[in-house]
């Protein structure tokens, strides 16, 4: 170690030195390691091992040993090995074969010299040692054998080591004797080879060492057939030990396991063995040598040598690779309980029940099965549930369909099909409910009798009774007031319902379901469904269903009733309409016909000449029909008809009565059309058409007659008034003559007073006209003429009459006073006929007054407005009045109190007044005279009096 300033460098040097030293040390020490490594590296080159095995492949013990060896050899990954395996198969092929083998091997492995040979079995070792000089002389050999005799040092030489496996005969025997204590004999079966004999000897020795009482039976080296005989005839209390038979006494080669199987099948005694591979082929068990274990141990030894140990340095070992194992089936066969086995004993070949073998599979299968079963059960259950639900839904659906059907049928039921459809529905419902009878009972009268309105019953059964009294069913009747009654068995009825029960039984019903039909709280009927064949419970939910159905039926019944009522009232209406003489049409507000008499008496013409051009039927517009007629200009009466109908429809007028004349019909035709407002919110009108042709003709005839008679009367009256007439005419005539003559005188006189002449002439003209008027009036009065309507002022008429009769009145010294009402409303009538009436009355009055004393002669004529809106003409005289007997007869024709005259005047006057729509009557005045009153309707603006 250097000190000083160079310490740093020295230290570095030191470090470097140490380093290099350690490196050297490492290398030195590690060299072998490295060498080893290098050796190992170089020994990475694969080594080859040859397994030379006695026997043949396929023998279980051979295969087990080989497998054990291989597994160990290959487990060491640090050595890469190539393994060759050769089977000597010396038993099947003769010694000549064996002789030629070495050459053949040498040739074969010329290029593949084995680095180590494992000899399995004594014969393999023997072969190797014999041919060692020229076959693989220096290759280490590791053997496994069971034969001690091979331990000849001379033969062994160098590089040979191995393991001697001994059979654990002693322990096996002891085990066997423990298991079968009353054993007396031990038989030994084995092959015929020298090795077999050697093995036998060893065995005998062991047996001898044991209990003396055992007899040893030597069956080795016998031919198979003899062996077979022996095993079948072995006495009791004998156990057999089996040594592998490769060759039997007859020289036959066997697979030891097959030989064992054959013998064990026939053996009467249990066979113990010493070799593990045979367990399961008939051995009961024991301490068995495991060939696999042997192979393993040998391979371990081989590995040691391969790793570098010298074979010579390893002493030959002894080992017993044996296990205590028993065959379960044999245990069962020889009835040995497992618990008697030594602890640690393995029991092989347990008859693994299918359960043991396939436990998991079985479990799995079972589980699957269980799952499947539960699934199936679940599904089945579910399906049942579903089926039940489906069934119940199905049933519900069927019921709902039934209800819908019944409801649809019954809600659109025309009355004509009631019976049929009700019965149909009853049948469907009864069948659905599985009842034998279904009926609909209706209440009749107030007394509580019920009659069958509709019913259905199954074929072959009795129909239900036609009617029953509610007294027979007190309990049920009470129950019905509360709702649906369901009786599954008659015994369900309470004790108090004895009467009910008896009656029901009498009618043959065993189960009943009744549903009341109620409308607006009143029970109008009962639905009854009955089972007569058997008593059985009605389905659940029946009550509700019956209620639903009952409602439908009740509604249908109520509707039918109301329809029937409507129809009856309709029929009544139609019958009434048909019975009327008039043809009646009912219009709505727009004029459309909504009802009409069945057959119109009105003739409907094709050429537009009839009153109605088209047939009036419901739906046509009546107003339009009339408008058509009005526009066709056939008859002017149509226009006011249209107006009148319109007025009534528009509610401006409640009633309009018109007469309509159809001139184109031959002979003429008259209708009285009366339009009356319909008193209802929707408005409308009723129009009645009455054919009044006959009446009209009669009227016309009567009028014509009247006209004639009136004319006659006028003529007669004129006759009576000749004085007046003459007077009336003579006056103007006289004036004319005087004026004319005066004018002549003026003209021819000394003073031509032309003005006077002019006056004369003017007056002449006036008087002439006056005279002309009188003549004209006279002519008018005497004319036959027909009724001519015009607006007439009664005051004027009376004045005319009074003027006419004035002279006459003067003659008779009757003072005539006229008190007209100024502004009197005019009347509509024939002027001449009204003049005639006034004339008649005034002339009569004059005549009556003239009979009185001179100072008591007066006539009072008055006009006034009457209370009822018309005008009244009053003629009061100062005569002696009319007697009580005569008063009613005064207006009779040909009634007169005068000596002369027809007596027609008053009757004609009355006819005329009545024809004018007025009244003419007589009474006595307070003063004793007669008063004649004539009332006439005032001409109303707009009122239509159309008369032909």
């Amino acid at each position, binding site marked *: 170690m250097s000190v000083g300033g160079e310490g740093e460098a020295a230290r570095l040097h030191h470090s470097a030195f140490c380093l290099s030293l350690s490196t050297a040390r490492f290398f030195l020490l590690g060299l072998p390691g490295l060498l080893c490594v290098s050796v190992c590296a170089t020994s990475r080159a694969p080594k080859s091992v040859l397994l030379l095995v006695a026997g043949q492949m396929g023998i279980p013990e051979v295969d087990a040993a080989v497998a054990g060896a291989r597994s160990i050899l290959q487990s060491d990954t640090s050595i890469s090995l190539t393994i060759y395996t050769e089977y000597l198969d010396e038993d099947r092929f003769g010694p000549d074969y064996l002789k030629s083998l070495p050459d053949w091997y040498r040739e074969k492995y010329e290029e593949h010299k084995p680095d180590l040979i494992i000899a399995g079995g004594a014969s393999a070792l023997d072969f190797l040692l014999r041919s060692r000089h020229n076959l693989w002389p220096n290759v280490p050999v590791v053997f496994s054998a069971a034969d001690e005799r091979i331990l000849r040092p001379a033969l062994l030489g160098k590089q040979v080591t191995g393991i001697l496996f001994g059979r654990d005969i002693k322990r096996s025997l002891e085990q066997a004797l423990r298991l079968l204590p009353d054993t007396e004999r031990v038989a030994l079966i084995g092959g015929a080879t020298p090795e077999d004999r050697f093995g036998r000897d060893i065995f005998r020795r062991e047996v001898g060492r044991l209990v003396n009482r055992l007899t040893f039976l030597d069956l080795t080296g016998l031919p198979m057939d003899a062996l077979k005989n022996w095993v079948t005839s072995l006495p009791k209390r004998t156990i057999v030990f089996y040594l592998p038979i490769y060759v039997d006494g007859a020289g036959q080669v066997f697979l030891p396991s097959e030989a064992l199987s054959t013998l064990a099948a026939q053996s009467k005694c249990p066979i113990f063995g010493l070799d593990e591979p045979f367990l399961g082929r008939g051995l009961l068990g024991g301490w068995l040598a495991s060939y696999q274990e042997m192979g393993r141990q040998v391979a371990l030894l081989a590995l040691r040598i391969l790793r570098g140990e010298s074979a010579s340095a390893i002493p030959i070992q002894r080992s017993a690779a044996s296990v205590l194992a028993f065959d379960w089936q044999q245990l069962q066969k020889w009835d040995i309980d497992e618990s008697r086995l030594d602890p640690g004993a393995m029991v092989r070949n347990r008859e693994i029940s299918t359960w043991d073998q396939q436990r998991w599979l079985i479990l799995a299968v079972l589980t699957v099965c269980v799952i499947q079963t539960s699934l199936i059960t679940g599904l089945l259950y579910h399906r049942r549930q579903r089926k039940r639900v489906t069934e119940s839904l199905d049933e519900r659906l069927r019921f709902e369909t039934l209800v819908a059907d019944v409801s649809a049928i019954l809600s659109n039921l025309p009355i004509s099909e009631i019976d049929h459809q009700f019965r149909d529905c009853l049948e469907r419902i009864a069948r659905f409910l599985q009842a034998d009878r279904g009926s609909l009972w209706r209440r009749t009268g107030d007394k509580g009798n019920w009659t069958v309105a509709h019913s259905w019953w199954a074929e072959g059964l009795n129909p239900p009774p036609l009617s029953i009294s509610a007294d027979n069913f007190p309990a049920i009747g009470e129950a019905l007031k509360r709702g649906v009654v369901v009786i599954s068995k008659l015994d369900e009825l309470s004790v108090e319902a004895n009467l009910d029960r008896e009656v029901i039984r009498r009618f043959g019903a065993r189960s009943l379901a009744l549903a009341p039909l109620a409308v607006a709280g009143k029970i109008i009927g009962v639905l009854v469904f009955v089972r007569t064949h058997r008593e059985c419970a009605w389905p659940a939910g029946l009550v509700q269903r019956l209620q639903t159905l009952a409602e439908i039926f009740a509604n249908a019944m109520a509707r039918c009733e109301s329809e029937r009522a409507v129809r009856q009232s309709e029929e009544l209406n139609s019958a009434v309409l048909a019975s009327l003489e008039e043809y009646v049409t009912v219009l709505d507000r727009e004029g459309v016909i909504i009802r009409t008499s069945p057959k119109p008496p009105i003739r409907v013409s094709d050429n537009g000449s009839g009153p109605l051009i088209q047939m009036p039927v419901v739906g046509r517009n009546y107003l339009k029909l009339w408008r058509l007629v009005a526009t066709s200009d056939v008859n002017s009466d149509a226009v006011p008809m249209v107006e009148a109908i319109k007025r009534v429809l528009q509610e401006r007028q409640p009633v309009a009565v018109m007469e309509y004349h159809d001139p184109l019909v031959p002979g003429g035709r008259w209708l009285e059309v009366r339009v009356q407002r319909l008193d209802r919110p929707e408005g409308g009108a009723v129009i009645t058409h009455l054919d009044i042709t006959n009446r009209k003709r009669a009227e016309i005839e009567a009028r014509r007659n009247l006209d004639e008679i009136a004319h006659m009367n006028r003529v007669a009256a004129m006759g009576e008034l000749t004085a007046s007439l003459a007077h009336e005419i003579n006056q103007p005539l006289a004036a004319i*003559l*005087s004026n004319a003559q005066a004018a002549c005188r003026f003209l021819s006189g000394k003073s031509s007073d032309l003005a006077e002449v002019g006056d004369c002439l003017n*007056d002449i003209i006036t008087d002439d006209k006056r005279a002309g008027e009188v003549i004209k009036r006279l002519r008018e009065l005497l004319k036959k003429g027909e009724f001519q309507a015009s607006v007439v002022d009664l005051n004027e008429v009376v004045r005319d009459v009074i003027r006419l009769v004035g002279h006459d009145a003067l003659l008779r010294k009757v003072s005539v006073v006229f008190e007209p009402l100024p502004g009197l409303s005019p009347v509509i009538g024939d002027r001449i006929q009204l003049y005639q009436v006034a004339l008649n009355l005034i002339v009569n009055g004059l005549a009556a007054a003239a009979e009185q004393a001179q100072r008591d002669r007066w006539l009072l004529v008055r006009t006034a407005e009457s209370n009822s809106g018309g005008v009244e003409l009053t003629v009061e005289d100062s005569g002696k009045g009319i007697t009580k007997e005569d008063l009613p007869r005064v207006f009779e024709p040909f009634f007169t109190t005068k000596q002369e005259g027809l007596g027609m005047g008053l009757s004609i006057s009355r006819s005329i007044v009545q024809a004018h729509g007025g009244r003419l009557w007589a009474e006595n005045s307070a003063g004793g005279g007669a008063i004649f009153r004539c009332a006439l309707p005032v001409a109303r603006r707009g009122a239509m009096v159309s008369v032909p």
Partner: protein
Amino acid sequence: MPSIVRRLVGVVEDDESVRQSLLRLLRSSGRAAMAYASAEEFLLCLQRDKPCCLVLDIHLRGMSGVDLLEKLARENVSIPVVFITANGEEAPEGVLRQSGATCLRKPFDETSLIQAIDAAIGELPAASAGPA
């Protein structure tokens, strides 16, 4: 006092046109005439007018012609009268005989009328002063 008694003819006629025509006729024949529409009217004017002759319509409103004559007779007024009538019937016979008057039926000719008037007047004494 002596007054010139003009020959005044009174006409009592209720029909106006006849009345007027008679007035004209009388005037055209040169006679003075005065017309009255009714008997009552005439009576009122009698004192004033004092006609020498009356043309009297038998049928008058109110008092008739015959009644007027009777009244005059009762009051001792005698005036000659000529009756006229439009009526077909004649005046009551008794009256005619009593008064001695003629009755003319309308329409009558002027000649008939004037002759009747003259005859009626001529029968009277000329100076019928009466109680002046």
